């Protein structure tokens, strides 16, 4: 595409169209942030487990009582991240994109 045609195309884009595309880009960015929250949390838990493996008593269970085997803080963080991603994030993103589509249609 020559620079002249590209310039013509850019100048024919209406201001409201630019506003719509900015809105959908913003919605898409927000959707990505929400979708990345769970994996980021889970990754933080994994990183923590690697940095402090002694916090996971399951790795060295000998001599540990019931409660110390239940208490696995890095795994709690991973679990929260995974559950957030699977149970909450899809619905939030669906609503966010639906709201953006409705705003564009108006």
């Amino acid at each position, binding site marked *: 595409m020559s620079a002249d045609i590209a310039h013509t195309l850019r100048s024919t884009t209406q201001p409201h169209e630019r506003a719509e595309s900015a809105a959908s880009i913003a919605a898409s960015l*927000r959707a990505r*942030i*929400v979708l990345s*929250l*769970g994996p980021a*949390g889970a990754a933080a838990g994994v990183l923590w487990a690697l940095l402090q493996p002694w916090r996971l008593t399951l790795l060295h269970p000998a001599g540990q009582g019931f*409660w*110390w085997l*239940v*208490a696995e*803080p890095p795994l*709690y*963080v991973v679990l*929260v*991240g995974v559950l*957030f991603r699977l149970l*909450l*994030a899809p*619905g*939030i993103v669906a*609503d*966010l994109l*639906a*709201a953006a589509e409705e705003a564009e249609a108006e």
Partner: protein
Amino acid sequence: MIAGRIQPPAELVHWWFATGFVILALLLISEAVVGEEVWARRPWRRYLWPGFLFAMGVLMFPVMTFFTSSTIHMLAHGSWAQVMMLAGAAELGLARGKLRNPWWHATTALGLVVSGTAVLVHEQNSWFFERAAFLHHTIGWTAIACSIFPLLKAVRPRSLTAGLGLAATFLIFAVILYADRDIAPIFGHLSYFAGMPHR
């Protein structure tokens, strides 16, 4: 005697509450990112974090009953239970529409100030006595300083800074509570009077 045997160690309870704060933080970040209108599209979602905060307040009562070893300790945990329930209930009222004045968000600020004061008052050792003392001072001052965020939300209910700031506050609480252990040094410091390190 039997209760003592089946009762989990105190730091485990701190870690469970830390996990609760991680959940609260994720919910608040999501709400702040997508905005109130999108968040409220599914009615049950409006009650999610206020209800969770209220439940954490309710669960603080058994902690007060079974895990406190002195009067001042018990009063501190009792005050946290009450202000968490108050803040959760006010936010539930706002979510339901029964409460309309955005200044009800200030109950969360009140909760943070009361909690911070209680945690500072009931910690009688200096910052570097041992890890728990350091964490008490840190969480207390963090709670008081960060009470600005719910206050900001009362003034500007749609403020992104207020939402993300409160979420960050809960994340800091989670990190501090996860760092809580039985007697342990802090930055290489451990008072002779604190006892032997356990874990």
